[in-house]
């Protein structure tokens, strides 16, 4: 490839749509909504990535994976930048990715239920005091209950189904 023929950001985004999230490999870093921007600065590609949870240990691995994938496509000159604004929200996970999560056994996030400071209202919602129904990703039943709002990774909560009795992960909303 000649130096002046630079792949477009859309084309690059398509490549990154094949880079799996290291913790939840059925969805890609693009599905997750953490690739915020792709832009050329002269001959340097600047990839802007936002973290999901502040302390997510996968953040560094994701950056390596993005860099690896782009180098494999011949982009040697690149820089990964972190952006915090706007902060990542689980609402950014696309519809197709939600189906992939469900098929993988993770109940996808329900938009608009992130912790928002309405403490008692939120406790009510999550303990069955409202119509929030997290469907079991295995049998589809809405008769489920939360075991713990902290799960196997920072972005997941532990739930169980009271019909099929299977435990499952629920994508934690922020």
């Amino acid at each position, binding site marked *: 490839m000649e130096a002046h023929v630079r792949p477009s950001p859309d084309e690059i985004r398509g490549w990154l749509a094949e880079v799996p999230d290291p913790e939840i490999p059925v969805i890609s870093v693009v599905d997750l909504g953490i690739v915020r921007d792709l832009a050329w600065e002269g001959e340097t590609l600047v990839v802007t990535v936002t973290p999901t949870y*502040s*302390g*997510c240990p996968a953040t560094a691995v994701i950056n390596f994976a993005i860099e690896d994938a782009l180098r494999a496509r011949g982009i040697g000159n690149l820089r990964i930048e972190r952006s*915090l604004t706007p902060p990542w929200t689980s609402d950014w996970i696309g519809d197709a990715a939600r189906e992939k999560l469900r098929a993988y056994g993770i109940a996808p996030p329900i938009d608009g239920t992130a912790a928002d400071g309405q*403490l008692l209202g*939120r406790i009510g919602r999550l303990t069955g005091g409202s119509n929030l129904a997290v469907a079991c990703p295995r049998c589809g039943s809405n008769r489920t209950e939360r075991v713990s*709002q*902290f799960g196997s990774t920072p972005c997941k909560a532990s739930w169980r189904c009271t019909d099929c009795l299977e435990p499952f992960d629920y994508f934690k909303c*922020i």
Partner: protein
Amino acid sequence: MGDTTLVLGHRLSEWCGHGPVLEEDIGVANIALDLIGQTQFWLGLAREIEGRGRSADDLAFLRDVWDFRNVLLVELPNGDFGQTIMRQFLFDAWHVAMLRALTSSSEPRVAEIAVKAIKEAHYHLEKSADLVVRLGDGTEESHRRMQAALDILWPYAGEFFLGDATDAVLAEAGIAPDPASLRSAWDATVLPVLAEATLAVPAGTFAQKGGRRGIHTEHLGRMLAEMQFLQRAYPGATW
């Protein structure tokens, strides 16, 4: 902010593998992770402002006790699980109030960290408040332990609201709130939960202080000895 989240994050990480039940072990480890992640943002900003070439890791691992500006509450040993949860609740209630104020900081780099961190802090508060009620209004033994924890920790909570000349400058510039201004929001969160937990608020207004001036309890040095061991023994080690 960064020292307080770092020290508490490390204290919580000491529970990893020792929690009373699996879900709590995982929950506490997750909160530790969030706090250490937030520490990377705060100390990252501190190193940027300092501009002397020290990294966030240098600030975490190569400063000594008197350089730390965390409140004393977070450096206290964990005690039993009830005491850890009570400390977390008293901290979370302040953390949410502080972060909420910082979201409108005149310094955009402060505001953006606060906007990110408050989403996580709400989850932490939800969990610790829930457990304080369940354990306080639980069995005779869990109630006794939670009351004992509150009696030990209460005098340390007052430090959150004490300001100094630096705080006054920050408040004047709209960068951070006057610490005293957070008291009413904290009371409004903490007191109803303690009442629901059937716990008695200790009498007296004496507040332990010193952490924010670098004057610490003997516990911080021991904690740093463990936390900083690797970088002290093998300077520059990476993996």
